[in-house]
């Protein structure tokens, strides 16, 4: 059968021998793993062998959209890139919103697989059936906005072209490097930009003009109108419309689990300067949506600063304010926006960058790093100018910045202070301190790609219940992980989950693909994806010892704020989680579970 929503074609580009091929989208895999993140796991499992060096030509960049991408499904704009991560050395994926994913679909492809390695800088130009590998020597070294501009200019001054590119960070194999689309929308985490840099691939430019059809267009129309209506009235969606994701700052700081000064505390005393209404008043100049999203949580900002000059960007969003702001003890919008600009224009992840700088700041305060090491920078918590200066060094790989560009795990081991590095499997934590919301400890620790909050953002149900309880969190985390695997594989923005319950997702999936599905079957798809991801990491040699938490969260009680005194009793939680997942005590899926899921 031909499924609705999909185009039926995958584009494969080998940069070593410049071979471009088109192959059929495996429909059974779509039925089993849906798309985007799930389909990425399917291809990774088949094509990237355990122990593959992330920077070798054997690594691949597997871009996959979902069946709902570029249909009328609201917020259908996500696309996943799956790759072996140079940060975590594990299977990894990163999702990007904006317009790149839908444009890939409009060009006629459900996915794009990049393999091999070019011998000199190139970029890829995809316009429907026409696929060209073009020289990019003159683009090498250019910042993200300049690259975007030059490529569009070269391709007939067409502003409708969507460009995914890397900046100097990716070129210089900064392990935190992202792939950036539309100048400000990133495949942010895990270092996909460094993988792209290692392949000498500067950019992928796409423009498409193919039809995308859903199986049941009238049902999808009805559902889309209903979702627009729900979101217009939904308080959380409206808060995002007004303040962006920064709407969360106030609540999380009040609850005392906002990453502050390298997670030494969960309450930022200057946090009130960084809440949504302050941001709107001080720096926001406009709103920006991703494709087909009726919320428009993106915020354009501008500052005219004495210290940093004129800066205007899209963002920063919540995680960025948390990591570059509170976690570095910085409360100045000017400094945070300048810091975000450096990360965005050079192309590296603001979360990982913030975590790495805050680690260096703690080292500096403890005397482990000195002014001699920092090149004269007074790298104290709260020093916004120091934040900007050290990020510039990381961006250019100068001095201490060269080491910090390796990411917080490698840097902390070389500096000799691994206990101060807040990461799991090499990936820094997002801005929720797990001591104030215990399920997030499991989220971070059991995420296949290292500490990532969106694998199972359990804050909502946990705040509504007992957020400090350790025991009993496993079922909530399992349910959220399963649900997010579906959202990520359908390629919907996670903000759509405010309107799309499991029942609505089932309706949506049926209208898009034409497949018959019920709630239980959809959840089984989610669980199958989680188990396949787990199996990939087991083959890589990962086990219980890697599902760990930095000792700060298990040994140092939260010193102040509304989560004061809390530590995570982690081993109990992990035992419970493995049990509800049907995994053995070492975190390996049991045969019974795999058979049940058809793996």
């Amino acid at each position: 059968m031909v499924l609705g929503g999909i185009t039926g074609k995958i584009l494969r580009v080998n940069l070593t021998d410049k071979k471009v091929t088109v192959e059929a989208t495996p429909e059974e895999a779509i039925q089993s793993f849906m798309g985007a993140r799930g389909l990425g796991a399917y291809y990774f499992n088949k094509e990237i062998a355990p122990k593959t060096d992330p920077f070798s030509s054997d690594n691949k960049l597997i871009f996959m959209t979902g069946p709902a991408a570029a249909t009328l499904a609201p917020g259908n704009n996500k696309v996943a890139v799956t790759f072996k991560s140079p940060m975590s050395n594990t299977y990894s994926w990163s999702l990007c919103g904006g317009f790149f994913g839908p444009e890939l679909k409009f060009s006629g492809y459900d996915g794009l697989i990049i393999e091999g390695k070019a011998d000199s800088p190139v970029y890829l130009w995809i316009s429907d059936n026409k696929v060209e590998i073009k020289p990019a020597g003159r683009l090498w070294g250019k910042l993200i906005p300049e690259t975007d501009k030059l490529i569009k200019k070269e391709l007939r001054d067409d502003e409708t072209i969507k460009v995914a590119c890397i900046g100097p960070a990716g070129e210089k194999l900064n392990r935190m490097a992202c792939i950036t689309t539309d100048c400000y929308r990133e495949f942010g985490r895990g270092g996909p930009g460094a993988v792209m840099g290692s392949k000498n691939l500067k950019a992928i430019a796409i423009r498409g003009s193919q039809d995308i059809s859903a199986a049941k267009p009238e049902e999808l129309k009805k559902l889309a109108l209903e979702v627009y209506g729900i979101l217009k009235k939904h308080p959380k969606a409206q808060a995002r419309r007004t303040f962006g994701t920064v709407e969360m700052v106030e609540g999380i700081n009040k609850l005392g689990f906002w990453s502050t000064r390298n997670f030494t505390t969960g309450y930022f005393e200057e946090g009130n300067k960084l809440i949504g209404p302050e941001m709107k008043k001080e720096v926001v100049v406009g709103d920006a949506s991703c494709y087909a999203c009726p919320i428009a949580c993106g915020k354009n900002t501008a500052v005219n600063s004495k210290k940093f000059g004129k800066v205007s960007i899209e963002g920063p969003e919540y995680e960025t304010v948390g990591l570059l702001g509170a976690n570095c003890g910085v409360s100045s919008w000017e400094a945070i926006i300048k810091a975000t600009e450096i990360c965005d224009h050079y192309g590296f992840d603001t979360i990982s960058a913030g975590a790495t700088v805050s680690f260096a700041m703690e080292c500096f305060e403890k005397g482990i790093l000195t002014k001699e090491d920092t090149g004269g920078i007074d790298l104290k918590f709260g020093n916004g100018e120091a934040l900007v200066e050290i990020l510039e060094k990381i961006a250019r790989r100068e001095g201490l910045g060269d080491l910090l560009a390796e990411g917080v795990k490698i840097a902390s081991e070389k500096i000799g202070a691994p206990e101060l590095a807040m990461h799991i499997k090499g990936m820094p934590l997002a801005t929720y301190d797990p001591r104030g919301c215990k399920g997030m400890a499991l989220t971070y620790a059991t995420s296949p790609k290292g500490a990532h909050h969106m694998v199972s953002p359990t804050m909502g149900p946990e705040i509504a219940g007992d957020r400090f309880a350790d025991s009993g969190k496993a079922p909530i985390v399992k349910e959220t992980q399963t649900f997010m695997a579906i959202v990520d594989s359908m390629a919907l923005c996670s903000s759509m989950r405010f309107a799309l319950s499991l029942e609505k997702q089932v309706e949506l999936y049926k209208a898009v693909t034409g497949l018959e599905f019920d709630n239980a079957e959809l959840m089984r798809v989610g669980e199958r994806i989680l188990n396949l991801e787990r199996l990939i990491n087991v083959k890589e040699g990962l086990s219980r010892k890697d599902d760990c938490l930095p000792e700060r969260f298990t040994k140092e009680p939260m010193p102040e704020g509304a989560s004061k005194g809390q530590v995570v009793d982690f081993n109990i939680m992990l035992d419970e989680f493995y049990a509800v997942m049907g995994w053995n005590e070492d975190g390996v899926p049991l045969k019974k579970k795999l058979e049940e899921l058809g793996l």
Partner: protein
Amino acid sequence: MSEKVLVCNSDKCVGCRICEQWCSMEHFKVVNPVKARIRVIRVHETAKDVPLACTQCDPAPCLKSCPIDAISRDEATGALLVDNDKCIGCQKCIKVCPNGAVSILKETKKALICDLCKGEPVCVKVCPEGAVQYIDVSTMDLPFKSKAAKEIALAGRDK
């Protein structure tokens, strides 16, 4: 003839392109940006999203420039209609349009211009921001006048 016109306001547009999706869907039963008669283009330098759509100019440069009279005006709505049997795909209408609102449909190689959905434009119905409106021509200017007045008033206050 209708006294309503289609008005796009880039100050309100956030660039979601939901209008494009529904325009294409309404006329072609598929989603395809190049089949949408309304397009939204994000200009990164100024962080602005600009919706481009036909304003049914009168006299219309496209209608005047058409060498074989393939464009006519719908009596009821004022929409500019392309006669696909006559259109030769010469692109003159694209080049003279002051709004960048005309395209060529690849399957037919004929011009594609907004037909106002027979007087009920779907883009207006679905725009979450109210950035595309179908309103009385005599009052369409008033929000723009009000904005200009506010800017002048604020400039005065600063002095």
